[in-house]
């Protein structure tokens, strides 16, 4: 039970009694040069239907106006509700910033909410998390359902196309979370709520720090370690957040860069011997993806060959029932679990091909990431 007990005395009977008090929640908000969005993020935290004890912004090596904006927000909300701390010489990116914030928690909240600074929260996200923790005393961490932040109106066609692909991907990933309702594969750091005791248990594994500083995917490592110390990890479709997505493929911060970091980091973790018993499913997943990639290459290669040699693809086939069924399933999942739907996304989903090409892109990045993990073990962000 998440509630703490508060002793008080009954006026009528004079006997002491025990009253249920609301559990306290503190939000950790690491921010690295987030001047464009930090104020909106803080507003969504302060506007929660379940009030937070306070929000701790961790300004991580900021060189823009992030700190000034936070200080302005402190005047608006009060320095007791919105606290600010700065990292000094942090070389461990987000993990280092989160560890810095965790060490500076003065009160002892029952729950800690961690999130990315470029994320917008639903008003009831904390409330939904508390309810689920209340129902599930063995759960140590719950991640939210993720959605893509709305596009800017001046976005180019290519950016819109990339955004739509990722929005569909997020929607289908939410359906996947329902399939795996018993346990989350990963607690993405974009917006996640922890039981403080679970984080304390993890901190015993590595000298007081919680988030591993030697991992490219500190959130995946944390998930594995949470399982290792005996806590459950879950996802919740009642907890909703919107996050920024890359709108270019190449370059720093592009889709390729982001995915190869996630995937190669995941492969790094899978290769670790001490947590291997929690990564069997991921290994199975990668094997299936490799099988998929081979079959796709075979399929498209054959189709290309037929077309080049003047052949005709005969689409009438008993076997076509399967892709039709698959398209219907994918479309129904997209309708139920994706938001900000439009007709283009609907067409992309029902005709499979754009999503197939995007899935193929991800699989190729995965293969490259496996190579990276083995050949360049000393990679950094």
């Amino acid at each position, binding site marked *: 039970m998440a509630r703490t007990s508060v002793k008080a005395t009954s006026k009528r009977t004079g006997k002491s009694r025990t009253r249920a008090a609301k559990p306290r929640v503190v939000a950790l908000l690491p921010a690295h040069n987030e001047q464009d969005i930090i104020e909106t993020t803080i507003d969504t935290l302060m506007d929660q239907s379940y009030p937070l004890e306070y929000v701790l912004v961790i300004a991580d090596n900021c060189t823009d106006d992030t700190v000034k904006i936070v200080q302005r927000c402190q005047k608006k909300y009060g320095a007791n509700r919105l606290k600010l701390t700065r990292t000094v010489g942090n070389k461990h990116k987000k993990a280092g910033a989160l560890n810095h914030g965790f060490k500076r928690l003065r009160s002892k909240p029952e729950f800690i909410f961690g999130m990315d600074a470029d994320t917008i929260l639903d008003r009831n996200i904390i409330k939904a998390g508390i309810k689920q923790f209340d129902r599930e005393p063995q759960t140590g961490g719950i991640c939210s359902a993720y959605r893509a932040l709305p596009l800017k109106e001046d976005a180019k066609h290519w950016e819109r196309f990339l955004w739509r692909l990722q929005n569909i991907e997020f929607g289908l990933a939410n359906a996947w*979370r329902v399939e795996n309702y018993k346990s989350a594969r990963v607690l993405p750091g974009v917006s996640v709520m922890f039981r403080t005791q679970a984080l304390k248990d993890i901190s015993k594994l590595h000298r007081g720090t919680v988030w591993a500083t030697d991992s490219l995917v500190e959130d995946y490592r944390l998930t594995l370690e949470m399982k290792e110390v005996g806590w459950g990890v879950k996802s919740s479709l009642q907890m909703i957040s919107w996050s920024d997505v890359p709108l270019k493929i190449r370059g720093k911060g592009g889709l390729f860069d982001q995915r190869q970091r996630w995937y190669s980091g995941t492969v790094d973790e899978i290769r670790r011997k001490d947590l291997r018993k929690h990564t069997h499913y991921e290994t199975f997943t990668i094997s299936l993806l490799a099988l998929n990639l081979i079959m*796709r290459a075979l399929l498209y290669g054959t189709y290309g060959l037929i077309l080049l040699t003047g052949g005709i693809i005969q689409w009438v086939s008993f076997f076509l029932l399967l892709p039709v069924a698959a398209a219907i399933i994918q479309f129904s999942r997209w309708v139920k679990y994706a938001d900000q739907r439009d007709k283009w996304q609907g067409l992309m989903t029902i005709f499979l091909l754009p999503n197939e090409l995007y899935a193929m892109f991800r699989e190729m990045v995965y293969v490259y990431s496996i190579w990276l993990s083995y050949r360049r073990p000393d990679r950094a962000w």
Partner: protein
Amino acid sequence: MQIPQMSPTAAVLRVSGLDATLHEVAGVNWHVLLPYTALGGGLMVYSQVRLLRGQHVLKRQLVAQPAKKRSRRGRFLLFRLRSDVGVVVN
């Protein structure tokens, strides 16, 4: 941040159906393709069953439990707890 990959079952099931057309269009022996097609079809059904089960369980968790019929003593205890000091009992 790391979002989960799309369900491997969902990924396989789409392609397996398309791969099966290789038999029709390219004359690839169906003996070669059938195991993968069957795997995809099987996974498609498995994936949908898991989704429906997940939906059912999550819905059940969210819907408030109907009030149980309480015994006379149970009702009395509950009344006493509530009327004593107005404490919310969970």
